[in-house]
């Protein structure tokens, strides 16, 4: 048993998750993946989990979910199957879903192996890495240069800043706020162009509920930020919105 334990222990850190562990057990037992003896596999699977626990290693939750799935399938398999298929669709094999999942995972596991088997840059093949011809100065007219940066780098940069200064308020950014910002920008752009607009004009043709609320919030926000001013000529009159400062 000790031998087996070491064997298990060695194997543990190479599993990529419960599906990987199951595939390993299937292969080890030379089992047909389309006809898995659930009782046997469940037993071996649980044995592995026991060993992980006995080694005082934390177990990812996914392994426990799979354990309960296996037990569930096992219990379903024990139920007597009606001799005659009923008129309704014949009962599906309780293992079907799991088999499908295993096959799909196996496919991608193999795809991953195939990918890493390709001639990889910086592993098998190398490109020129020296800066070329220092004599060739970069042309200065970078009017329309392409900027290569992705959104992930952007949010990374922001995240870096936030963690540096640890201002909680900075964290209060969510989708709602960002949509509002779009509308704020839109409102300011139009105000700069048109000099002044009524609320109705600001809404334009797009008068769905969400749009009205957001535009209203945007105007309130802009007033608060002292970026626009709202004027009313008489009580209940039309409200006109002006940029706070002429540009």
């Amino acid at each position, binding site marked *: 048993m000790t031998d087996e334990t070491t064997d298990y222990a060695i194997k543990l850190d190479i599993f990529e998750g419960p599906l990987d562990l199951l595939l390993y057990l299937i292969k080890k037992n030379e089992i047909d993946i389309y006809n898995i003896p659930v009782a046997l596999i469940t037993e071996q699977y649980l044995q592995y989990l026991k060993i992980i626990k006995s080694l005082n290693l934390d177990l990812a939750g996914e392994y426990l979910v799979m354990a309960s799935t296996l037990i569930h399938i096992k219990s379903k398999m024990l139920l007597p199957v009606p001799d005659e298929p009923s008129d309704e669709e014949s009962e599906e094999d309780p293992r079907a879903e799991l088999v499908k999942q295993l096959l799909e995972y196996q496919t991608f596991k193999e795809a991953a192996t195939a990918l890493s088997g390709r*001639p990889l840059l910086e592993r098998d093949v190398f490109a020129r890495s020296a800066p070329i011809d220092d004599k060739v100065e970069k042309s200065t007219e970078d009017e329309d240069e392409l900027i290569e940066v992705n959104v992930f780098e952007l949010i990374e940069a922001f995240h870096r800043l936030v963690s540096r200064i640890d201002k909680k308020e900075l964290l209060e950014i969510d989708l709602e706020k960002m949509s509002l910002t779009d509308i704020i920008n839109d409102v300011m752009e139009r105000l700069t162009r048109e000099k002044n607009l009524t609320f109705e004009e600001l809404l334009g043709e797009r008068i769905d509920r969400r749009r009205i609320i957001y535009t209203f919030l945007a105007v309130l926000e802009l007033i608060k930020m002292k970026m626009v001013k709202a004027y009313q000529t008489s009580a209940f009159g039309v409200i006109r919105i002006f940029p706070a400062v002429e540009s």
Partner: protein
Amino acid sequence: MENFKAIIEALILASEAPLALEKICVILENVEKAEVKKAIEQLIVEYNERQSGICLVEVAGGFQFRTRSELSPWVKKLKGTKSASLSPAALETLAIVAYRQPIVKAEIEDIRGVDVSAPLRGLLDKKLVRIVGRKDVPGKPIIYGTTKKFLEVFNLKDLSELPTLRELKEISEQKEPESVTEPELIEEYSDT
């Protein structure tokens, strides 16, 4: 400009990234695209015939000089051992993104059966995977796809050059899994 083949050679060497045929045409201005293409093909053959240590390859939508893969032991000796290998978790995640893109995190996790936050983050850091947009469903989950760098690193002309998953099944002497739905390959997701 009779010898535009030499110009093309110089441009490909000077370019930081694989150089696209279209870009070469823009620079050469008065040469037909077909002629440029022919010249590149000639160059590829010449480098191969010369048994040179360098070869010209088509990768990530462009052309680039690369060292011949048989010589990697020597080049590695030069470069030191900083082999940037990906963990199995990262590779599996990358394979799923590559074949199933555009894809959201939950879908990757469905296939792998585990949380993929860490490998996904690693792939983003390495710029092999990028954020493509958001899915228009409740929660607006982030959609991921592969990058041009992915093609560069894995020596692929474009995504259609990915080995098909069916081929893989044949290799793996599986009993024919007729019932399994063939995941189709989404072709155009290379980045700008």
